[in-house]
């Protein structure tokens, strides 16, 4: 993901993993710069398209995990936030993250536009393909928030938060590492964004969940937890498969280069590790829920897939296959164990976004040191802490500002009725169940 340090990082990873001698093929004049440029650009376009598709995955997962009275609203939030991310990352985010950070804290406040062909960097990839690829990552961070806060946050306040998150907060912390800022100089490693994307989104979600409070009826005064099952398991499953699919673009594309034997091999290794970690996350979650609760919990299995994916995201390249299994399986276990923990803390996270993206994001970031000799515990902890602190603080200010300016949460009555009626005046399934007769004819 980090274009300024691409060469170093890739080489580092390679060396770290295999202590391979310089490869003859790499040096051979087998691939001209222009061909590499085309390959790299393709990697960004294909990878970016897959990551774009993750927006649909979050939408479906969340639509399946909320009650039907809030399904249309969560759909509106998800398409809205993806659109907003697309505009904000153009207008502000991209250059704030990548333009002139130079070891510092922040880029420039200018908007992105397509360069002339003559200004393309032939040693990298087409600038607009890079913009596209980085933009979909930014949108992903915002998608994480929508799930955690579903079923109680108003539409516009949520979208306003996303506007600042995608235009300012995400890009600034992104600049620190991928923009070549201070965290990068410090040696922090985060290949595809366990911290920069997933934990960042997770922190924003956690702070939001604390400020918003739990859904009505979730936690009784006496401390009893009342689970609120989601409306559609097949949609939740579809969403998870979409995310899994998109993750190949997320991690694979983050190699940032495809035009040599080593890059192609590395992207392949990333694909295999990514899939393996997700698979291990699923199996760990299924076995663990069976052992703990005597029944497999499908929603945990789905979360387990995502947990495995988030966990491998900080370093999908250097792990061997068995290490990918381990990293993913621990991710799956983390989710199974921390979802009820959050409930004990009365933090109401509708889809499990905080365990999946924040907790596994942290785990994945730490796990880099297991396989990448370039990583140091100190740098990893520094990155986790710095980004956690910044995103939490910025989110806190922003959530509170929106809360006091226009309010965050729907009224109790609107929440009982469902956000679809109160926020959109439109039902997700106007014909099914209790609401059917109105539109039968």
């Amino acid at each position, binding site marked *: 993901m980090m274009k300024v340090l691409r060469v170093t990082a890739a080489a580092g990873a390679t060396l770290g993993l295999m202590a391979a001698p310089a490869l003859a093929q790499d040096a051979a004049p087998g691939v001209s710069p222009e061909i590499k440029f085309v390959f790299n650009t393709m990697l960004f376009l294909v990878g970016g398209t897959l990551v774009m598709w993750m927006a649909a995955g979050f939408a479906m997962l969340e639509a399946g995990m909320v009650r039907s009275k809030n399904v249309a609203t969560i759909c509106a939030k998800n398409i809205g936030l993806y659109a907003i991310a697309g505009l904000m990352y153009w207008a502000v985010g991209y250059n704030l993250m990548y333009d002139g950070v130079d070891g510092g804290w922040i880029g420039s406040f200018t908007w992105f536009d397509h360069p002339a062909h003559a200004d393309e960097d032939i040693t990298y990839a087409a600038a607009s393909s890079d913009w596209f690829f980085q933009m979909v990552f930014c949108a992903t961070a915002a998608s994480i928030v929508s799930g955690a806060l579903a079923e109680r946050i108003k539409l516009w306040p949520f979208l306003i938060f996303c506007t600042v998150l995608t235009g300012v907060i995400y890009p600034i912390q992104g600049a620190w590492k991928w923009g070549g800022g201070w965290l990068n100089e410090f040696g922090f490693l985060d290949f595809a964004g366990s911290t920069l994307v997933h934990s960042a989104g997770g922190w924003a979600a956690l702070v939001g969940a604390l400020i918003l409070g739990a859904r009505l009826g979730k936690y009784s005064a006496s401390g009893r937890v009342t689970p609120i099952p989601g409306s559609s398991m097949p949609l939740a499953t579809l969403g998870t498969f979409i995310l899994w699919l998109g993750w190949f673009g997320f991690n694979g594309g983050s190699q940032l280069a495809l035009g040599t034997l080593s890059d192609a091999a590395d992207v392949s290794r990333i694909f295999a590790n990514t899939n393996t970690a997700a698979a291990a996350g699923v199996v760990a979650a299924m076995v663990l829920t069976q052992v703990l609760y005597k029944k497999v919990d499908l929603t945990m299995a789905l979360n387990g897939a995502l947990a495995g994916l988030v966990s491998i995201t900080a370093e999908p390249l250097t792990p061997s296959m068995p290490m990918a299994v381990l990293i993913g399986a621990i991710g799956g276990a983390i989710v199974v164990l921390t979802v009820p923990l959050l409930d004990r803390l009365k933090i109401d996270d509708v889809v499990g976004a905080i365990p999946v993206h924040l907790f596994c994001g942290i785990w994945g970031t730490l796990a880099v040191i297991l396989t990448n000799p370039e990583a140091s515990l100190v740098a990893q902890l520094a990155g986790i802490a710095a980004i956690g602190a910044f995103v939490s603080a910025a989110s806190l200010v922003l959530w509170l500002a929106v809360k006091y300016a226009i309010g965050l949460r729907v009224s109790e009555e609107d929440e009982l009725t469902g956000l679809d009626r109160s926020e959109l005046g439109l039902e997700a399934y106007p014909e099914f169940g209790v609401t059917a*007769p109105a539109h*039968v004819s």
Partner: protein
Amino acid sequence: MKMLTAIIKPHKLEDVDDALAALGIAGVTISEVMGHGRQKGHTEIYRGNEYKVSYIPKLKIEVVVDDDLAERASDAIIGAARTGHIGDGMVFIGTIGDAVRVRTGESGAAAL
């Protein structure tokens, strides 16, 4: 006090509701039901095998009215729900001992 239970074709709901409203009856409760009577269902083929679709979707309308309105209400429903085709449905007229409005606690005719 009477409870009218009407089984009607789903697309007749609006007409029936309007006819009741014309009599000043504002309170109705509607459920989705399935049924058969003289109208018997039909056969379909699914993946090469015939099967009988025995039940036809209907709506059930329950209206509680004062005794003196009962006949007019029943006539109104019948008039509005009739298409003349099989499956038009039924109106059942039962007696209710009392009605209480939850919000106010009013009971009897005052509750309706």
